């Protein structure tokens, strides 16, 4: 009996010491049940809403406006007398607006064919993590372009609709890692009037675009479209652009080499004349400046 008593004494002592120790080293945060990870959108797959020419899977934040100036210089193959193409420039100015996390609209005007364009981009599904997550973003972009050049043949009966073209695009993209993102974008372009009988009014293209981040603020990008149908390949080429994205505060600079001049979907998909084989490529840049035009709503406290 005495033996058991002393053993118990020891036990109580141990218990006492143990509780003291545990109070010292206790991880207090473990006492609270961790909330389930909330569903969270995967953002920044690309630095800008365009890979280079093509729409990217990325959206503007709601309430922001993006003012973009896009330049494409002349062909490098023009040589030193034309300062490797820098003597000429074609440009597009654009204003894009973020309406929702998954909805944006934009308008632009290009010097090439004095074309005005507008688009809506909407993502029914966005890549996310947490509960009910989805591994990829699926977005749809639809746009229209309007050629405002004087009629090439004013004597012919001309219709206003002949100036117009439309495009529809599905973008399926995934940010595979912090560094690497890839997207596919099947596109259909419909032109009400085409330049030659060898062209079809409807053309189809399959785009593949990606980026690889080399540092926090610098990324390599590529943007290629394979023309499947409708474009006369004797006259035109598949557009390929390779570039670098540089991010500085409120700006994104996209510097690149490309074989296309056009900067809207109709122009760069169906009217890319340059050939990479013959160094008929151009230097170009997109300069984006972001503005917050609407203050964010205060999130209500739970």
């Amino acid at each position, binding site marked *: 009996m005495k033996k058991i008593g002393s053993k118990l004494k020891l036990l109580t002592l141990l218990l006492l010491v143990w509780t003291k120790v545990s109070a010292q080293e206790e991880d207090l945060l473990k006492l609270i049940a961790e909330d389930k990870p909330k569903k969270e959108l995967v953002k*920044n797959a690309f630095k800008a809403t365009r890979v280079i020419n093509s729409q990217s899977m990325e959206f503007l934040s709601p309430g922001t406006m993006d003012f973009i100036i896009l330049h494409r210089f002349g062909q490098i193959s023009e040589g030193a007398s034309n300062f490797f193409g820098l003597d000429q420039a074609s440009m597009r100015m654009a204003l894009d607006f973020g309406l929702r996390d998954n909805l944006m609209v934009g308008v632009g005007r290009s010097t090439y064919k004095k074309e005005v364009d507008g688009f809506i981009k909407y993502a029914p599904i966005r890549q996310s993590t947490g509960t009910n997550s989805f591994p990829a973003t699926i977005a749809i972009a639809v746009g229209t372009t309007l050629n405002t050049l004087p009629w090439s043949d004013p004597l012919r009966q001309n219709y206003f609709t002949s100036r117009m073209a439309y495009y529809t695009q599905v973008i399926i993209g995934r940010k595979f890692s912090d560094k690497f993102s890839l997207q596919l974008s099947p596109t259909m372009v419909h032109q009400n009037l085409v330049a030659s009988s060898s062209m079809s009014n409807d053309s189809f293209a399959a785009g593949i675009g990606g980026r690889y981040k080399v540092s926090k603020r610098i990324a390599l990008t590529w943007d290629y479209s394979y023309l499947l149908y409708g474009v006369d390949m004797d006259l035109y080429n598949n557009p390929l652009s390779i570039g670098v994205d540089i991010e500085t*505060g409120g700006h994104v600079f996209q510097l690149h080499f490309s074989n296309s001049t056009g900067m809207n979907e109709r122009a760069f998909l169906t009217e890319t004349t340059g050939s990479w084989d013959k160094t008929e490529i151009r230097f170009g840049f997109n300069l984006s400046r972001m503005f917050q035009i609407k*203050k964010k709503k205060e999130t209500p406290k739970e």
Partner: protein
Amino acid sequence: MEKILLVAIALFLGASTNAQDKYFTKNGTITFDATTSTSPEKVAAVNKSVTCVLDTKTGNAQFSVLMKGFEFEQALMQEHFHENYLESEKFPRSLFKGQIINSSKINFTKNGSYDATVKGHLTMHGQTRDVETNGKVSVNDGKIAIAAKFAVLLKDYAIEVPRLVSDKVAESAIIKVDCSLQLLGN
């Protein structure tokens, strides 16, 4: 024999009801401000989902902050904060584990406002540094509010500020903590 057993059981129960001394919140507030005097825009964010647990017996205080919870007025600034500065994907949480070193002088059961000195380690952006600051503990009808303000040097936590934005983003950020705690029931 039975007496000893009773004592043992009583002690054990006493130990397990320790939780009576613990207070917590899941929606504390932390604000972050790194605006320079020359900056035209506010470089500031607020996080309203801070988790905090305080053990009034030992004075131990621990904070867990989900970095993605920091919200800025400007969407782009918020994106850059997470993408380029704090790298919130890589380092999703910041932790503070410390102690109110003068907790013995604070009566957590009596209404009033007390000065507190907190000492501990702050882990942020993968870096751990010692932090010591003064704060306030206010007790009001079984609820405990804690508030503190301190500065962290961004360089200490390997947060690089590019020279281009150094006129807007300060070298050190003011961190304000504001938590209203309630008894942790179990």
